[in-house]
């Protein structure tokens, strides 16, 4: 094992981790703003990716636009509008009627939303495997050739994806910490009743936060979709993000990012270093075992709020 190959594995892990973080962020956003663990996050990723893929396919035919860049941009915007509609409908038909209800009730409601989105997405957009081609470069690049012999091989697609994810995360952090709407979101997360009493419009806040989560799902869906193809199994991407959320803490945006990175790196390193001894396939279960360990010893995650109950 050389340093170069170690670094290569590390970089691969970090970049994969960034993508996990992106999906995990969707969970954290909604949890922070409404105290709901949103089971529908995976369905939202699939729905957004389907919309994006199909719009990109339809737009050149309908409008006669030939430039793939423009078509992709329009498709992205169109899918964004779809996610806004989804957020608005969810607020109208579901959340509005569940103000001040138990967390479990809301959780079950999101489970319902998840099945609904899975179904309606495939009804509208079809259920085949579709392609998203946003022109991500597929060829790998070599780095540090003069530092290590042979250099480090880096997947350019992963690198770009990680950069996009990083920018999005930066924007979201600013939104939450620096704006009055961000503050209002955090307030709503803590106490619905009190937030309303000082004039924070609960309904608008929920639409905003589901929209933001929708956009995050769209970006995640776009990136994963262009890697793996848009198909039903994209919903399981959300399952991959579950351990990330447990690790990072449900209430922490930085937690989602660092959790994602740890899991990405952990998966890759364990596969390479432990794989030969215990047999391959560690990558598949590593994250879940790590999450279990965390649940045993630090249930609030790395950065989550520790809940102290006064008795």
């Amino acid at each position, binding site marked *: 094992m050389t340093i170069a190959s170690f670094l290569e594995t590390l970089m691969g892990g970090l970049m994969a981790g960034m993508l996990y973080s992106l999906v995990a962020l969707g969970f954290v956003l909604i949890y922070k703003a409404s105290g709901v663990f949103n089971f529908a996050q995976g369905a939202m990723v699939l729905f957004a990716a389907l919309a994006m893929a199909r719009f990109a396919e339809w737009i050149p035919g309908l409008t006669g636009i030939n430039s793939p860049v423009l078509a992709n941009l329009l498709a992205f915007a169109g899918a964004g509008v779809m996610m806004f509609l989804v957020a608005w409908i969810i607020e109208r038909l579901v959340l509005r009627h569940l103000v001040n209800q138990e967390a479990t009730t809301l959780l079950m409601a999101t489970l319902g939303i998840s099945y609904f989105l899975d179904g309606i997405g495939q009804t509208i957009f079809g259920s085949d495997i579709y392609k998203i081609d946003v022109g991500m470069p597929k060829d790998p690049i070599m780095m540090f050739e003069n530092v290590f012999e042979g250099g480090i091989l880096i997947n350019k697609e992963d690198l770009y994806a990680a950069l996009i994810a990083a920018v999005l995360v930066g924007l979201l952090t600013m939104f939450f910490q620096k*704006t009055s709407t961000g503050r209002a979101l955090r307030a709503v997360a803590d106490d619905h*009743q009190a937030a*309303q*009493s000082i*004039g924070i419009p609960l309904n608008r806040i929920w639409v905003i936060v589901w929209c933001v989560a929708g956009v995050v799902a769209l970006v995640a869906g776009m990136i994963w979709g262009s890697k793996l193809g848009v198909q039903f199994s994209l919903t399981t991407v959300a399952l991959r993000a579950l351990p990330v959320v447990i690790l990072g803490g449900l209430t922490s945006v930085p937690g989602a990012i660092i959790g994602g990175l740890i899991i990405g790196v952990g998966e890759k390193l364990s596969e390479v270093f432990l794989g030969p001894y215990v047999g391959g396939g560690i990558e598949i279960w590593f994250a879940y075992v790590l999450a279990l360990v965390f649940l045993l010893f630090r249930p609030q995650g790395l950065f989550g709020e520790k809940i102290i109950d006064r008795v």
Partner: protein
Amino acid sequence: MATKLIGDVILDVKNISLSFGGVKALTDISFNVREHEVRAIIGPNGAGKSSMLNCINGVYTPQQGSISLRGQTFSHMDSHQVATMGIGRTFQNLALFKGMSVIDNIMTGRNLRIKSNLFLQALRIGPAEREEFRHREFVEHIIDFLEIQAYRKTPVGQLPYGLQKRVDLGRALAMEPQVLLLDEPMAGMNVEEKQDMCRFVLDVNQEFGTTVVLIEHDMGVVMDISDRVVVLDYGKKIGDGTPDEVRNNEEVISAYLGTSH
């Protein structure tokens, strides 16, 4: 102490009736609140005091009657709309944003007044920066007023109860409400904390001219700081007047002390 000028009726409650299923919480309650006064609603446990406040605040919608603020009548309002009309409130069982710092909690009270664009805020550009600064200054003023400077960055969940009550008051004050509803501001406090809270309530009333409607259990406190008192018992109004009038009202005495038969 400056003598304050009590103005015209600002909040008018007319014939309010509220029931939950078969339980009548309030029956035909009418009273008014004048500008700049401290108006108390008292009564034994279960008299309907909190229900009354929740009606004014828009949490409950009464089946009958109307409430008007400065002549503007509202019957179906939610809490958010009531807040935009200039009615602020505190809670009997604290409802603070526990994970957030004292400053952030109070800043949320400014939310309705922040006008600048979301993107400008995120980037801290020009007018947005100045606006944030202005609101922050106002909040610092409230923090000084409530004497909680030392805790401004502390997450509210970690503060002792008495201080949390002050933060609750601070958040409502940050709205610059015309009418401030206080739901048992002194509940669960020791004598010293009660005195502090009384002082804050009176200062708010005198310095800012805010009209205060408060619910209180502790008769002593109420009689000392209120201008006029409404007494409720089993959802009905049994007395209304100055503290002295109320104190000598037969019905009130029997409601509180019981009658000898």
